[in-house]
């Protein structure tokens, strides 16, 4: 990182001062279409600068790139329904399962006995919330590794969809295909949305003996669970096992 003192002198102070002036003026202008127009103009200025900074070879010339595919979710239809299921209770045995990953290899819960497992049920590959949620877990992958936890992500998508989606996003933890019978494992975990044909956004933490120690169903499909809470749960589990 650049020396902070030097950086403080470097950043666009004039722009910052102007922004502060603009922020302060809000309170002096009564709510009106004129005020709204000023706000919109301010927003337009920001987005113009953003577009100028990003200017490069037009898409038609450079062709579609991997990042364009990864970013498709930004313009995909929203997924915002309320939860319709309650998770299995903490303290109950986690139902075992065996599902294929994107290479076709069957992965079971029981083969991870002896370590903590985070089961991540999510609605669908390629969708907005799911792309961001699994990007977050990939960015924080070391946090799971440091806690000795295995991460298994599960959706009703096929292993071929999982393979393409994981490659585009650079995901290196297993995505399991709850594809046939569709949603069977999600049903066992009480998180299948029958009317939609996919799972809730839900988390389970299973301890080294196969007991559910944490369960969470997001109140809305677009709500991604708080990562800090999940990591704290894993820390508590580690402390409990060490005691």
């Amino acid at each position, binding site marked *: 990182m650049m020396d902070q003192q030097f950086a403080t002198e470097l950043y666009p102070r004039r722009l910052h001062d102007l922004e502060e002036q603009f922020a302060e003026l809000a309170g002096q202008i009564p709510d009106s279409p004129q005020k709204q127009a000023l706000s919109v103009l301010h927003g337009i200025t920001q987005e113009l*600068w953003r577009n100028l900074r990003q200017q490069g070879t037009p898409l038609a010339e450079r062709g579609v790139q991997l990042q364009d595919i990864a970013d498709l979710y930004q313009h995909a239809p929203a997924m915002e329904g309320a939860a319709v299921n309650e998770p299995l209770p903490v303290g109950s045995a986690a139902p075992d399962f065996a599902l294929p990953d994107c290479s076709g290899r069957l992965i079971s819960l029981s083969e991870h006995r002896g370590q903590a497992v985070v089961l991540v049920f999510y609605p669908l590959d390629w969708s907005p919330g799911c792309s961001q949620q699994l990007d*977050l877990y990939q960015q924080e992958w070391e946090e799971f590794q440091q806690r000795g936890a295995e991460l298994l992500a599960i959706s009703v998508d096929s292993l071929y969809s999982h393979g393409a989606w994981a490659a585009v996003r650079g995901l290196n933890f297993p995505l399991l295909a709850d594809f046939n019978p569709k949603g069977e494992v999600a049903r066992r975990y009480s998180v299948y949305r029958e009317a939609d044909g996919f799972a809730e956004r839900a988390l389970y933490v299973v301890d080294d003996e196969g007991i559910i120690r944490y369960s969470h169903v997001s109140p809305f499909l677009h709500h991604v669970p708080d990562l800090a809470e999940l990591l704290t749960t894993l820390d508590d589990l580690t402390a409990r096992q060490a005691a």
Partner: protein
Amino acid sequence: MVVGSSYSPYGRRLAPPRIPVVVYGTRWCAQTQMVRRYLERLGIPYEYIDLERDPEAVQRLKWLTGGSASHPTLYIGGEWLVEPTMRELEWALARSGLR
């Protein structure tokens, strides 16, 4: 400029930013979580405004960004970033000399 929590959600005390960096977000937004953890890993001080707990901040943000209160929205030393990609965030930090 804005007033918010001086603690990160991960319990770390945030130092007052020398180059103003402000993150407007929500607890359940994945991109907000990614941005915050990214800044913390780099040791970049920032102010966090939880839009669900600060209705005034929502109104302020709408004024400043053209009528929407999207999350995350970042303010970095005079520059606004509405729902930036991680690459845009990296560039903005570099322009401000923070990276």
